[in-house]
């Protein structure tokens, strides 16, 4: 908090109430002189008031001269009180402090712009934080009743209280329609704000991705492959944004397969269609992680060597079995003729799956395309 002398409480209050901090500080000093209530109030507020982070480069400097001045005033008043006996407010002053703090809690929870609208309808602000509001109201009431009781005037005041209640009731009846109108207006304003936020989010999305991609496409218009890749990547992004639930790609098989397919599609410019049925969390033993790596290798192979215009990936979780198919309609190959030292299929796919207790099968024939089938059994958590 900028401009604090001790805990910044007075400064904070002054900002909240749009008053000069000097006034608040004088109040605290005065109240401290009277039975030390000011100090208690200060301490309580210091604890409960929300902190405002300091925004600035240099560390906040306390104005020691001001602090000294206020201390001097306090000491002087204290001396004066002792001399005259005026500080013997007795227990009667305590309720004032309780009520005052209650009112302050009520006051400080509304944010400044809204408080202006709510000035005349304080009841409306209570909706925001019921517990604190209730606490505030209770404290105010206790404070008021306590004050009257301590003064021994509760009995006399009951007449006045009744009168007050009638007046307040009457006012409520008069003001009710107006309050209802205000309430409706507030709701409307809130809905409008939500709508605006949504619109802003869409605008940001369109700006960050779609416009950006269109610009890129114009720049690389001569490169057909690149244009296709950009358009496809953008399409996928938009689709995910519109239709897919927000998923953590490191959490489940379906999300991970989608992400891998997206990455390989971007890297090689071949569309990869992904269909997922069922889903399962990734296991801690790394079996599924190994399976995902094998599936990535299968996608890379299909994209790089098959010449297929598109690749189909199907991931299915049924009970405790996870199956991933990667299929292309490319040129295929003669599996037996693959040299033993070619690591792509034998090691990265089949070997890896077998090492982790799964299985891989490759079906291919020259001219018939290729399909890699990976299966893995996992225990469901």
């Amino acid at each position, binding site marked *: 908090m900028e401009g604090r002398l001790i805990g910044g409480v007075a400064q904070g209050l002054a900002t909240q109430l749009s008053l000069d901090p000097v006034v608040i500080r004088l109040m605290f000093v005065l109240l401290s002189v009277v039975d030390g209530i000011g100090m208690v109030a200060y301490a309580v507020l210091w604890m409960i008031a929300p902190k405002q982070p300091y925004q600035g480069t240099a560390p906040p400097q306390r104005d020691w001269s001001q602090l000294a001045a206020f201390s001097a005033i306090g000491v002087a008043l204290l001396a004066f009180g002792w001399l005259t006996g005026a500080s013997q407010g007795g227990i009667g002053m305590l309720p004032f402090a309780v009520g005052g703090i209650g009112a302050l809690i009520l006051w400080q929870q509304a944010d400044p712009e809204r408080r202006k609208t709510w000035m005349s309808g304080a009841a409306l602000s209570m909706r925001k934080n019921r517990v604190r509001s209730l606490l505030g109201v209770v404290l105010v009431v206790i404070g008021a009743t306590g004050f009257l009781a301590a003064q021994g005037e509760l009995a006399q005041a009951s007449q006045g209280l009744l009168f007050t209640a009638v007046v307040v009731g009457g006012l409520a009846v008069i003001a009710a329609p107006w309050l209802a109108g205000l309430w409706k207006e507030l709701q409307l304003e809130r809905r409008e704000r939500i709508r605006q936020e949504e619109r802003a989010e869409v605008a940001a999305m369109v700006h960050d991705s779609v416009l950006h991609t269109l610009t890129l496409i114009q720049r690389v218009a001569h490169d057909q492959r690149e244009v296709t890749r950009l358009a496809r990547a953008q399409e996928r992004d938009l*689709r995910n*944004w*519109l*239709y*897919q*639930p*927000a998923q953590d790609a490191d959490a489940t098989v379906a999300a991970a397969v989608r992400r891998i397919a997206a990455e390989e599609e971007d890297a090689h410019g071949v*569309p990869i*269609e992904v*269909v*997922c*049925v*069922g889903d399962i969390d990734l296991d801690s033993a790394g079996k599924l992680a190994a399976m995902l790596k094998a599936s990535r290798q299968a996608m890379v192979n299909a994209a790089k060597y098959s010449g297929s215009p598109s690749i*189909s990936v*199907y991931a*299915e979780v*049924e009970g405790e079995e996870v199956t991933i*198919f990667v*299929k292309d*309609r490319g040129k295929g190959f003669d599996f037996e003729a693959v040299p033993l030292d070619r690591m792509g299929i034998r090691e990265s796919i089949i070997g890896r799956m077998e090492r982790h207790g799964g299985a891989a099968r490759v079906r291919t024939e020259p001219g018939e395309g290729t*399909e890699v089938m990976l299966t893995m059994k996992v225990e469901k958590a």
Partner: protein
Amino acid sequence: MTRVLIVDDHRLFRSGVRAELGDSIEVVGEAEDVDSAVKAITELQPDVVLLDVHMPGGGGQEVLRRVLGSGSQVRFLALSVSDAAEDVIGVIRGGARGYVTKNISGKELTDAIRRVSEGDAVFSPRLAGFVLDAFASSEAPPIDPELDSLTQREREVLRLIARGYAYKEIAKELFISVKTVETHVSSVLRKLQLSNRHELSRWATARRLV
């Protein structure tokens, strides 16, 4: 010669489809919103309507409701950029005989139109995935076992479609005829349209939550 009406609110897309369709298909007209579509279908009586899912005035589902509600026998093939389960399941249950996405190739689209015109069903891999997911075994016992669950064979066919197999490849894989594959898919379509399985609509709606 199959007579086709293209219903889509994007003019560019309509002309693109028109150019891509093969010689065996005659495009008899185009429509760009729900009202003009219903009018054109009533007047032209095409064999197959290529129906966009998202359109002003209620979308493809509204066209289906108004045309099929009046007792027409026109066949619909839904065509959409949307992958949302709610849209897909929605138009199929609304009465469309197939669902393909707009990035389908001209040849595949021609094939799909022919199939729909012959009364068969057309499933994209994604639609097959949706159906498998929606009909996945659950704790709740089916109300109507005939309609509310898939047979083993239907499941196999759908799984192959989801894996990217064409009907011909599926037939070869399962040692059955293409006609039998088509029968299975049509039977799944019927279940999808008629099943009261409550998971179906709930599942599709839940899928939409982003």
